[in-house]
């Protein structure tokens, strides 16, 4: 350590600084380098990295909310209505939307994530995948099959904090049923708890 007084330019003697330079470079040389060998070694991305937007086509109802909220209008949706015949005799025919085209133009997208926030049916997700550069800018318009392929790269949602409130679904299930308390008669009314609907794979059997 230099004990020499600093001169008017704030330097403290030439020699210690010179030696300090040698020491710094030597120390750096003995430490692991900072280089990321990217194409050879995949980078470790932070959680919630915004690489690309993936589409879970089954969840999409063609409601167009994402396309309308998109600030630069880079989402293209085409759909048509399809009539489903009644399942029971004399029943009512139902209509549902069928998604024909869902495309995101990533040359316009600014990765704001509003479409993902606004989707009421969890059909859009952030994927950390970022290796989709193209030579021609027009090739950045990706259709729903390509967007669907990226679903495989979507990471599971991060775990909740230790002290976080229960998710709404879990809280609803765990809430004590009404009428089981001391005031009302036990079992007077059926519980009005919202329960998650049991989704059946097969359509209910036709009684006829």
């Amino acid at each position: 350590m230099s004990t020499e007084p600093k001169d008017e330019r704030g330097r403290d003697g030439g020699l210690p600084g010179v030696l300090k330079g040698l020491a710094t470079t030597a120390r750096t040389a003995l430490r692991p380098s900072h280089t990321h060998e990217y194409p050879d070694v995949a980078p470790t991305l932070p959680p919630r990295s915004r690489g690309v937007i993936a589409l879970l086509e089954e969840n999409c109802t063609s409601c167009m909310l994402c396309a309308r909220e998109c600030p630069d209008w880079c989402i293209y949706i085409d759909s048509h209505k399809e009539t489903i015949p009644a399942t029971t005799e004399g029943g009512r025919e139902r209509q549902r939307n069928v998604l024909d085209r869902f495309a995101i133009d990533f040359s316009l997208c600014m990765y704001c994530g509003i479409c993902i926030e606004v989707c009421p049916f969890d059909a859009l997700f952030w994927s950390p995948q970022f290796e989709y550069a193209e030579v021609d800018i027009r090739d950045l318009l990706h259709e729903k099959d390509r967007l669907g392929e990226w679903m495989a790269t979507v990471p599971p949602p991060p775990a909740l904090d230790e002290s976080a409130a229960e998710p709404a679904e879990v809280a609803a299930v765990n809430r004590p049923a009404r009428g089981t308390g001391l005031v009302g008669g036990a079992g007077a009314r059926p519980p009005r708890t919202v329960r998650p609907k049991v989704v059946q794979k097969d359509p209910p059997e036709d009684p006829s």
Partner: protein
Amino acid sequence: MTLLEVVLRAVAALAAFLVLPLLVGQAEHKVMAHMQGRLGPMYAGGFHGWAQLVADGVKFVQKEDIVPAAADRWVFRLAPAVALVPYLVALATLPVHPGVAAVEVPGSVLLVLAATSVGALGTLMAGWSSANKYSLIGGLRAAAQLVSYELPVVLAVASVALAGGSLSLAGLVEAWSPWWLLWQLPGAVVFLVAAVAELQRPPFDMPVADAELVMGAWTEYTGLRFAFFLLAEYAGIVVMSLLFTTLWLGGWHGPFSDALGWLWFLLKGFVVSLVVVWVRVAWPRLREDQLQRMAWLWLVPLALGQLLLTGVGVVVGW
């Protein structure tokens, strides 16, 4: 000496001249990278980019050889050769192993000093003949620098010659003893600093100062001629490092020097050249006035003091 022996010695010197600078250059690539927290070349040749300089050479060969219209044609074309060949001569005179040197002359100290100063002429020729203001300023700065730093080099070497009582490099290595490490230490420091300055390497790269002079005297050069200048720079590092090894670090002295002398010689030289690289990475460039101050106010008096000390030592009989 038969013709075959002459050819063999010449080929060996040429091979060393072509291989050692590449080794130093590759070492500089990697050492500098790691000192800056990088990895350096990693792809060429497969293993940690060992063939990077070979690839660079192939690239340089493919480039167009341009001579500026206003340039002094012959001087411009000759300059790389003038820069390169003297280092080959200097390298050939260095004693590699007990009794082994490519060229054995009695006054090899003088020959080496003369040859290394001629090498700098190439830079002057390049700067003068390029018809480019950056080249010219680079050449002028090189001239000023060489005038200043040639003197400390010669004085420092003279001190060793005095101590060893010989003008032959091999004789000086024979006369070397570990006591010289302390006795000749000031001269060694002076030589190392002045040698780096003579090679126009950072922190003494005022003549090429790329932030202000593009590439100094080499600005107008392309292709193979430019590569020759680069090769001359690294050959210069090799020659100066090995010369330092020969004069101050005892050359081939070391355990089992009868069999492994050449290895000690090369190893010590390599370590010295790593120091030259290290200095380049660690220190910023000196300003022109600082550069001249350092030569005339520090190195020359120090070298003269060393000469005095050596004289006293020789007379007293240390």
